[in-house]
């Protein structure tokens, strides 16, 4: 019996890579607009940073950092699959990508 594709780690790696990419693409303009507040002076940027200290905003920040790490690791996985003769390493690469994303997210959360 052929197992459904959704039980394969590669499918989950695809979903995480795609959803994290879309989320990051929507987040980028907001990120740039916030940094652009520095044009109006340090105080404008500072007021946003104080606002961002709310727990929910910090949680969203942590999610975004983890998504960025997941998209990076998932992208490296894809490049390895496409350009290197490592096709039998699919599951290992997916596990490494997930591990890297969790490690980066934890490092950020602990540093904060």
């Amino acid at each position, binding site marked *: 019996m052929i197992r459904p594709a959704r039980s394969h780690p590669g499918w989950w790696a695809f979903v995480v890579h795609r959803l994290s990419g879309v989320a990051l*693409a929507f987040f980028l303009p907001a990120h740039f607009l916030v940094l652009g507040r520095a044009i109006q002076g340090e105080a404008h940027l500072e007021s946003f940073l104080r606002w961002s200290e709310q727990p929910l905003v910090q949680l969203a920040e942590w999610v975004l950092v983890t998504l960025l790490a997941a998209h990076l690791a998932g992208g490296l996985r894809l490049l390895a699959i496409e350009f290197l003769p490592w096709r039998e390493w699919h599951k290992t690469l997916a596990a490494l990508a997930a591990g890297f994303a969790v490690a980066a997210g934890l490092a950020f959360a602990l540093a904060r």
Partner: protein
Amino acid sequence: MSARAGAGLWVAQRATAAVLAFCVLVHLATMIFAVRGGLTAAQILGRTHGNYAWGAFYSLFVIAAGIHGAIGLRTVAAEWLSFRGRAADAAMAAIALAIVGLGLRAVSAVVL
């Protein structure tokens, strides 16, 4: 879109991915280092003001992210929303220009 242009987008997506792999690693490490003990506008701008090496790095980061993000969204729009053709290509170009424009404005805000 012609097959040649499609191949060009495929190459651009992989080339920007390779640039972004390096940029995101540096960005993640910088964020984890920078958020220790809290984040203030003075700390951020103290590191970036007049630092043209960071300015060049983040300009490259922004341009690669704009191109990569727009091509990625075009693929997602085609596969999930069946949004294809000239309108989709025009939307992709507009998204790339918007992300790069906002990004370079943000870089100039914190560096100049």
